[in-house]
């Protein structure tokens, strides 16, 4: 589209936006008291004389079995902020012990006045392969869904809560007994919420519910690497009646075979 202006220019008027900061509600509520304005985030443009940062990242050992831990060690120079994906901001130099459940690329970014630098290290996690079939059905047989659900019962939660109730504790310990006897089984825990409340918040709450159920199994001796959690919030309703009996069925941590 071609637009030709024959009158004043928009830019002058545009600046008035910030100056006036008008809105209809502004007039209703304003007391003239602004929240303290902070300067914008610092520019990432390198300063003229700043030294470029350097970064190294090492892992010891670089290959482990599931359940073992690795020490990450990093060194940086000329860096103001340093972060490792999955861990977050860290000191410029340091080390941390991690326990990845699958092979993982650790990625570090160091940012300073002179720019940014990155480094990677790969940690290989050896996942034990099932024994050859025949020796023990437990070791490579995940069994049937029916057998699983007979022994591993869902756990239910109170309204807007992710604390395990006594009945959920007992379901979880019964489930753990079964899972400890069937080491080939991997489990996915789904976190669900009832239809009330807001969809975004319920996804976070469902995550807390699924993690609470997972933690109960871990406390009862099931390896954390066998359990995956997925929050469904209120996106996958088991039932849709607007009644407490239905809400209760939706507020649950549901165990399934993770095939």
């Amino acid at each position, binding site marked *: *589209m071609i637009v030709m202006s024959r009158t004043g220019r928009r830019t002058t008027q545009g600046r008035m936006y910030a100056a006036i*900061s008008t809105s209809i509600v502004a007039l*209703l509520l304003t007391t003239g008291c602004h929240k303290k304005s*902070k300067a914008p985030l610092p520019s990432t443009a390198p300063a003229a004389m700043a030294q470029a940062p350097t970064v190294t990242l090492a892992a010891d050992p670089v290959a482990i079995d599931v359940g073992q831990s690795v020490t990450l060690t990093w060194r940086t120079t000329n860096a103001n902020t340093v*972060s490792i*994906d*999955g861990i977050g901001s860290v000191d410029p130099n340091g080390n941390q012990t991690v326990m990845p459940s699958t092979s993982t690329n650790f990625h570090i970014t160091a940012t300073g006045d002179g720019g940014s630098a990155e480094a990677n290290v790969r940690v290989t996690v050896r996942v034990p392969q099932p024994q050859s079939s025949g020796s023990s059905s437990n070791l490579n047989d995940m069994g049937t869904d029916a057998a699983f659900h007979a022994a591993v019962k869902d756990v239910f939660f109170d309204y807007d809560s*992710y604390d395990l109730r006594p009945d959920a504790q007992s379901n979880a310990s019964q489930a753990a007994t079964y899972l400890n006897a069937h080491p080939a089984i991997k489990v996915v825990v789904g976190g669900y919420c009832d239809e009330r*409340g807001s969809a975004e918040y319920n996804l976070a709450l469902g995550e807390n519910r699924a993690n609470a159920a997972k933690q109960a199994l871990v406390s009862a001796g099931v390896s954390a690497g066998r359990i995956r959690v997925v*929050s469904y919030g209120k996106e996958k309703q088991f039932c849709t009646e607007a009644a407490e009996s239905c809400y209760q069925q939706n507020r649950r941590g549901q165990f399934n075979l993770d095939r």
Partner: protein
Amino acid sequence: MAVMRLHQTPLRRWPVFAGALLLACSAAFIPATFCAQDTVFTGTNKGADRIRIAPANFHAQSGDAVGLKQVFDSVLESDLKNAGVFDVVSKSMEPRAEPSAPGDINLAAWAGGNTNASYVAFGNFGITGGKVMVNAYVFDTHNAQYPQVIGKQYVDAASEEAARTIAHRFADEIILRLGGGIPGIAETKIYYVRAGGGTKEIWTMEYDGANPHAVTHLGTVALSPRVSPDNSRIAFSALGKDGFQIRVFSLLLDRMVNFNSAGGTNISPAWSPNGQLAWSSSRSGDPEIYVADASGNGARRVTSFRGPDSSPTWNPKTGSQIAWISGRSSLPQVYTMEADGTGVQRMTDGGYATSVSWSPNGQFLAFAWNRKYGPGAPGGQDIYVMEVATKKWIQLTNGMGQCDFPTWSPDGRHIAFAVGSGVRGQIWSMLADGTEKHKLVAGDMPNWSFR
């Protein structure tokens, strides 16, 4: 009218009387809507009027231009009505004339009688060689010597979409010029979730509900669309085999682009004005707010407290504060903090508060609040606006169903929100004082573009 008062009143004076008005309103909570009447707009209670403007029917330069011209006329009229700053003259009150050019208009006829317009928008609409050419003017009816306020020419393809776009641009020009220097929103878009067939996809539409169409076709449950400040990307969360993860769709490339989530459930993205993303990630086992670049790199955790943390929104004015929803003290509440996680403040004092959105001027938070939440409790979830500095609030919806996901228009004069959810959800729009509510489309989780 508010804006006109601002123009005419020294700026340093208005906070005083507006503050007095606020106290008057909050001292008696019930008449919040009453307070939202005339006194709200003027701050003086002296009845300053909105600018009265008459959109004349444009003159079609040829017979084949009539159809598109009528689209143009109706979109222009609708945009001016939606702006919230005009008293738009009904077409039935206008003179029977289609002034085509400055020489054709009889200003006295528009200034007097039932028309009584302060300004008149008019012009001509022609099609030549497959192109639309529109010459558009705004005249001040009370300035006979130099009446022209705006004169613009627009050229575009001869299509209905282009006719709508030209009308939007001309409306925005008028709003900018007469509405206090704040750019209009007629060219803005709203992104939202559309449910159907067991899936939820990201859709988009024009700000007035026109031209709704799908952006994603992922065949899964996609939630929480947020368009980037430069309108180049949409971040959202979508259900995959590892649960909900942040996904980013490039509107420029028309395809998904990479985002590094690094484990856990990742939901509710929010763009800062300089293009960073904040979102909720449970990579640590507990949902917390993280901030990273637009690809998810360099993620840093900014909250650290047991319990759900979700739905961040940046202060679009400063880019240095985040409001979000936290369940750290049981039921979810609105909190604010600096973007580095310091200075945490709880904003709501109880009930169930979710889906916070920070106003473009940085002064207000809009959110959904059920103030008496609990099994069997009366009342519903409605849209509220709170002033950040004082924590004083007003209720903007009442009795129209479960309201959620308020989102501010870039001019701060409008709020879109969802009523109901899922396949029964509807998206509504209103002025930011709660007036002039109207339904736009079927949908959920609206997000208004930054510009």
